[in-house]
């Protein structure tokens, strides 16, 4: 057997890993859809407490949008082979994400101060579940981001090697969008 390239093997379709990534996002979507519908069903049953949302959520919303912008900046820089800007973009993204997580935690403290506890009326519990699950996914994305950052420092992220940073960007924008959805969902269904 020679190590020849298998001509019939050429597959012209989406990169399997990227495709698998999208499928993973589908399963995450299903988790949040099911929790949203549980929220609506529970609210329909009655015995529902009105929630005063912590003002910090507005700050964290801005933070996560900014981090998405920086992520996209890094992605475009990778396309243009601007190694320095990739690193700056990724580091800024990571810092903004960490600020977001800290912000969410402080928002929890504000929630507790407002008298909405994790244990108590489900209307309050749901907020902790939504934000908590979102942050857990964000931790996963952060790990991924650090892997890409490591690769960026080894000059392994550039216009000819985009798969990782593309996947990371997809995941990142997805989580940003997910937070916007959750925030609006909670406000409109209060």
């Amino acid at each position: 057997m020679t190590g020849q390239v298998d001509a019939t093997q050429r597959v012209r379709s989406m990169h399997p890993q990227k495709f698998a990534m999208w499928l993973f996002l589908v399963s995450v979507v299903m988790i949040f859809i099911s929790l949203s519908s549980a929220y609506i069903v529970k609210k329909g049953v009655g015995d529902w407490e009105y929630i005063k949302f912590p003002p910090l959520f507005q700050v964290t919303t801005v933070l996560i949008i900014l981090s998405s912008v920086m992520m996209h900046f890094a992605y475009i820089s990778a396309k243009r082979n601007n190694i320095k800007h990739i690193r700056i973009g990724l580091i800024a993204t990571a810092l903004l994400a960490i600020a977001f997580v800290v912000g969410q935690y402080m928002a929890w403290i504000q929630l507790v101060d407002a008298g909405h506890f994790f244990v108590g009326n489900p209307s309050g519990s749901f907020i902790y579940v939504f934000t908590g699950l979102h942050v857990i996914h964000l931790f996963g994305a952060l790990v991924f981001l650090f892997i890409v950052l490591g690769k960026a420092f080894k000059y392994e992220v550039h216009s000819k090697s985009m798969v990782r940073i593309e996947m990371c960007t997809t995941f990142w924008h997805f989580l940003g969008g997910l937070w916007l959805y959750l925030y609006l969902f909670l406000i409109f269904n209060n």
Partner: protein
Amino acid sequence: MSVTDIQLQEGLTHHNEHHDQNFISKYIFSTDHKTIAKQFLITGIFWALIGGALSLIFRLQLGFPEMNLEWLRPLLGQWITESGKLDAEFYLALVTMHGTIMVFFVLTAGLSGTFSNFLIPLQIGARDMASGFMNMLSYWFFFASSVVMFISLFIETGPAAGGWTVYPPLSALPQAIQGSGLGMTLWLVSMALFIASTLLGGINYITTVINMRTNGMSFSRLPLTIWAFFITAILGLLSFPVLLSAALLLIFDRSFGTSFYLSEIFIAGEALPNIGGSPILYQHLFWFLGHPEVYIVLLPALGITSEIIATNSRKPIFGYKAMIGSMLGIGFLSFIVWAHHMFVTGMNPFLGSVFTILTLVIAVPSAIKAFNYITTLWKGNIVFTPAMLFSIGLVSFFISGGLTGIFLGNSVLDINLHDTYFVVAHFHLVMGSASFFGLLAGVYHWFPKMFGRMMDDRLGKIHFWLSFVGIYLVFFPLHYIGIAGFPRRYYSFTSFETFNIYTDLNALVSVAAILTFAAQFIFLFNFFYSIFRGKLAPTNPWKSNTLEWTTPRNPGHGNWPGTIPSVYRWPYDYSKPGAKDDFIPQTVPYSHTPESNLEYEKEIAGNENITGVEKMDA
């Protein structure tokens, strides 16, 4: 979503090159889809034995309530009471674990895990799964989940005992029954791991089917097995995350004191602090998974039998597109019928009617499938291999179990029949036994490809007849018991005067169950003996058309030495008029078979590219 032109598995083209693998990387932490499939199969068989044995214990209690079970003490210890009877709470644990094990570990992981892994790359013409590592991870998550569930069988307070659906508040309150303590916690941990395993597997199956088909393998040329695994994986991807949400909220209620499912409960005269939750909420979430799960269990079996019935009838499958359409239809409908499990939860009767209608609509694609199986068999040159017998058995169970589904889908009748043995009889036939027969049919049919040897034909046939007759003897009488009003999950009926006339029938069911279980040891012997001592298998023992039979007897890690074969036709060209043989494999181009080509195929034959060099618009 960018589209890229990529080169896959370059490293794998060194097929027959000598590459040493040590025992661990070859048989334990293997990334080869064939080895992972066998791991799923062996683990599934292990669980099937345990799940079956548990059912025998509670069948003894139901069939022979006066029996002294002292002889089980060495096995069950304190679960046998002073007077030699089965502990009543442990009875509940037995039915719970029997259900959980059979539905999830045997018929989901054991069936989908085995055959999706084994057949997808082999039948679509790929070297391996899209991600071998994820595939390995999928098995080991399943393994970890199995270990946790297995441990829960042996803890002092016993395994989970709230029924396989683990409805709160029973499952949420440790003070309710012993099984809702540590056993329930372990159940939830195990299921969380199981869901991770299923999602990893499912993502892999879908990606592989979509992205890694060989040249010419269009969706309209996919074997029905692959269609079934593909749709099953999509169902799993959409429904298992919902079970995860349900389980997560249950974990919070149990361990953190939240009130998602709990409200205004008094235990021993004392009010619990939980206010504002709703146990019905859990049922909605659970059955949103639970109903598609029925089809996650059943569809792979239907796919497997489609393939086996066409091959062994020596006829093209009747209604290939109708088969695909009905599977898609069943898959879609399975997501909008969940509340037919909840007719007695006090739902709005109008809503009940809506779910009744949607449920009854499922009869249409199901009937199409049954019709197509029978018409494929009609006037075929049937070869009765054990796999074929089990497939025909599946069709029988599918029909007789499906008919009672029409009864149960009606909210009016279901209010009467709900939670009786009628339901037990229904789903054991249509989902349990049918899928189990699909699993066995698959093992008999693909054993030569898995282990390079043949299973014994005669033992297979004996196994079939004993199982087939045994299963009907077990589950058919349960319909009568159910109509008479026996509720399921009751420890004993001896204190109800009305039910005494059924004592003999219950004893018959138990004896039949024991014999059916015993018959499975014929299979076990045949299976393990044939792995080492069976007759060497020819490369294409069933004269089948699909790609897996073009591999060597023992395919290496890469499946085909040299290039992967291209595909030129659909997989069901059996007994084509004019053809030399009664089968034409998918790898034979139309231009090689001028004697049997139909009008439109002559046109395709003229445009066929058989040089192996790919055209851009192919």
